[in-house]
């Protein structure tokens, strides 16, 4: 597989089109909503991610709106699918794994079971200039989840 094909796996191109979670934002609501806006200053790409915890299941509900390259859009989509299976703690653990994978410079083997579709981004870690793209949505959701947890603690 050429470098380009490793980067742009079909799964990624599909997610870039599907854009799971790219729906109207939640807006202020109870239970508390966490919201975060992140920018990639190199290219001006941006994303706003909102999340809340379903009081019944404890799981996250995620919505996002953004503009960016196929890697950043696909990453937001794959992340949303994964995060909605998780409670905040579970997401934080996932995020740590994904973050580590992205900084592995192509060395790490992704844990496909845990990371699901996000494992397809392993190839991105060979392209240092694109790592930021893959992480943009994750940074935003991490920040949003942190706010939810803070509201819980308060």
């Amino acid at each position: 597989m050429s470098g380009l094909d490793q980067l742009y796996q079909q799964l990624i191109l599909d997610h870039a089109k599907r854009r799971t979670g790219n729906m109207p934002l939640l807006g202020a609501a109870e239970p508390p909503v966490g919201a975060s806006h992140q920018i990639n200053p190199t290219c001006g790409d941006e994303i706003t991610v909102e999340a809340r915890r379903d009081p019944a299941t404890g799981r996250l509900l995620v919505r996002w709106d953004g503009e960016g390259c196929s890697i950043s859009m696909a990453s937001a989509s794959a992340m949303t699918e994964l995060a909605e299976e998780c409670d905040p703690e579970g997401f934080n653990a996932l995020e740590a794994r994904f973050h580590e994978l992205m900084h592995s410079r192509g060395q790490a083997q992704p844990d496909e079971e845990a990371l699901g579709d996000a494992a397809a981004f392993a190839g991105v870690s060979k392209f240092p200039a694109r790592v930021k793209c893959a992480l943009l949505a994750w940074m935003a959701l991490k920040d949003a989840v942190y706010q939810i947890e803070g509201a819980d603690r308060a």
Partner: protein
Amino acid sequence: MLSAAQVARIRNDFPVFDREVAGTPLAYLDSGATAQKPATVIDAEQDFYAQRNAAVHRGAHTLAVEATEAFEGARAAVAAFVGADPDELCWTKNATEALNVVAYGLANASAGLGGAEAARFALGPGDTIVVTEMEHHANLVPWQQLAARTGAGLRWIPLGEDGRLDLTDLDDIVDEHAKVLAFSHVSNVLGTINPVGALVERARRVGALTVLDACQSAPHLPLDLHGLGVDFAAFSGHKMLAPTGIGALYGRAELLAALPPVLTGGSMITTVTMEGAQFMAPPQRFEAGTQPVAQAVGFGAAVDYLRHIGMAAIADREEALAQRLVEGVARIPGVRLLGPADAADRIASVAVDVQGVHAHDVGQYLDAQGVAVRVGHHCAQPLHRRYGVTASTRASAYLYTTDEECERFLAALAEVRGFFGADS
């Protein structure tokens, strides 16, 4: 104009073109960001370190004398290259610093520093600073900061649909309140060459200082700052074959002599007591601390090289490249050119928006074919917003660019939408 054989010979002078990327020879179409370096420039720096490295203007020993001569010789060469006198040319680290020095010099004058002579530079509420909508952030943000610091207002000349400045309301925008008119000679995104004459004339009529961002003209066009009649100008060495870490501020002698210093420290003072300091005349007044000496020497070698090839020949050659690129882009479905659609009054810097594919993805696809272009907002966010995009893909050529490299770019660009499924 340079022949294909001449271009081939020129390429031999640039060690980097031996490099392969993605298994093919590198097609470097990112000279608008930074130019590649000929061996003569690399050698000039190396030779300086190996033969005459020493502090300049400070020492009396042999090496120091030789270093000073090399340093001042470079100043004379670069000044002559842009049509200025040596004392009108101050070294800076890059063009950004040069533009900031003007803005901070005005801020310092506005704060009462620099004495009576500097009063002519003072700005305040009711005054305006005028820029254009196409400016690089380096020629926009410092003016925003100056406005915030002094209470002056900021206005701008808008861009038209055709990628040129819309001068319809020039007289209204640059009115008698205008104290500064800062604008780029050539847009780093659109490639547009601006009508300097008309802008300078209007500024003069209302008594506004003109500040020319010559970053994209000095490398590509014959430049005569005295002839253009601007008050200040800024350009960077690294975009015109010189080392990184060196740029220049030009100021008309009379103005530089009155402008307060910005960075202060060693080598720019006459007398220092614990209580205060007196400053030297320009250009030293604006050169605090140890200068980028080896880089200045390299800059001298770079303009010698360019002069040897001939700026008129380079400009002609680049016009042909611009035409090739503009026409090629026009033939690709789903690709929109940002900037003038003809090769007249533009340089061979061609930015495009690929429908349905983000610029980052375009750039990545091209890189995989060994074609290096720049993607993003190119430090010109307002310009991109004006054309309804956040980012674009820019191919920018220089004297060493071949026709074949342009064709490789165009061929790869034509494939992009297919690869990302945007043509379906």
